[in-house]
């Protein structure tokens, strides 16, 4: 990549008011350090206290999702602690709203499961999401979940509009891996 490409890359980030961007490997230490930097960066914006808290919450749930579930990992695939996995995360500001987007590779066979978790949330009101969260919090854990299985619900609960998601085949439709994107606005 020539310097000219880097300039265009920066310029696009500026146009889209990207406050924060990271791509690469995510570990707990990196998530924590980024969280601290994000909090300090948000202190310099017009974000209200409520917005800052919601943004931080969405950021942590998304970033820890990458640590737990990204299909590309440096740590052993069956580990549940001290993990290092690949992804990307953006925080930006547009028209007085903030957005957080994360992307990480997932196994194609997980697409259905992720879609089934997210689709029902799209048409739900904030009160319905809160009720579902309460109910899930008190139910048994999803066997495939490493946390409480509440990450997506937490993201949807904090968001001020329905979350958006997509799967992009970076390596063609036959690759066993696809990129999962999730966006929340606050």
């Amino acid at each position, binding site marked *: 990549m020539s310097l000219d490409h880097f300039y265009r890359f920066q310029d696009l980030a500026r146009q889209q008011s990207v406050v924060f961007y990271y791509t690469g490997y995510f570990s707990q230490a990196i998530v924590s350090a980024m969280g601290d930097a994000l909090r300090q960066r948000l202190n310099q914006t017009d974000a209200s206290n409520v917005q800052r*808290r919601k943004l931080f919450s969405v950021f942590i749930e998304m970033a820890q999702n990458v640590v737990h579930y990204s299909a590309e990992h440096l740590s052993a695939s069956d580990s549940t602690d001290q993990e290092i996995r690949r992804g990307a995360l953006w925080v930006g500001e547009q028209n007085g709203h903030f957005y957080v987007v994360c992307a990480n590779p997932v196994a194609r066979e997980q697409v259905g499961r992720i879609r089934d978790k997210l689709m029902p949330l799209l048409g739900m009101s904030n009160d319905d999401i809160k009720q579902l969260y309460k109910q899930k*919090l008190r139910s048994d854990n999803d066997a495939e979940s490493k946390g409480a299985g509440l990450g997506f619900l*937490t993201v949807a609960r904090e968001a001020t509009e329905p979350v958006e998601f997509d799967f992009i085949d970076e390596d063609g439709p036959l690759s066993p891996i696809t990129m999962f994107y999730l966006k929340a606005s606050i």
Partner: protein
Amino acid sequence: MQNLHIPATSYSPQVDFDFARHHLSLSGESYPENASVFFAPIMAALDAYLAPLDHVRITVDVQLAYFNSASTKAILAIFERLNAAAVAGNYVTVNWHSDPDDDTIMEFGQEIAEDSPALDVHLLALA
């Protein structure tokens, strides 16, 4: 039994379970990588402490600035145990401290109060 003290990190809370004085406190931030790994020894110590107690006054102070979804589940499990201890004949007072403009944490304190009728829960706003 031995008191449990775990110092805070940037992503895990300070845990001060002073079993001798029957005072339990949790404060700071809670988003460890794996909440069940972090909370397992805390639950084990709490279970061992609560099991033989009868007619004891326990005070619990919670002052968490942020906790992630997996920690929320663990915190709920702590209060289920405390509620069971209160049902079994102990007196448990919970002081739930939260920032007045943090609805999420305040509402979660309310939910704990509703879920755990045997606990004496006080929702307190931090100045």
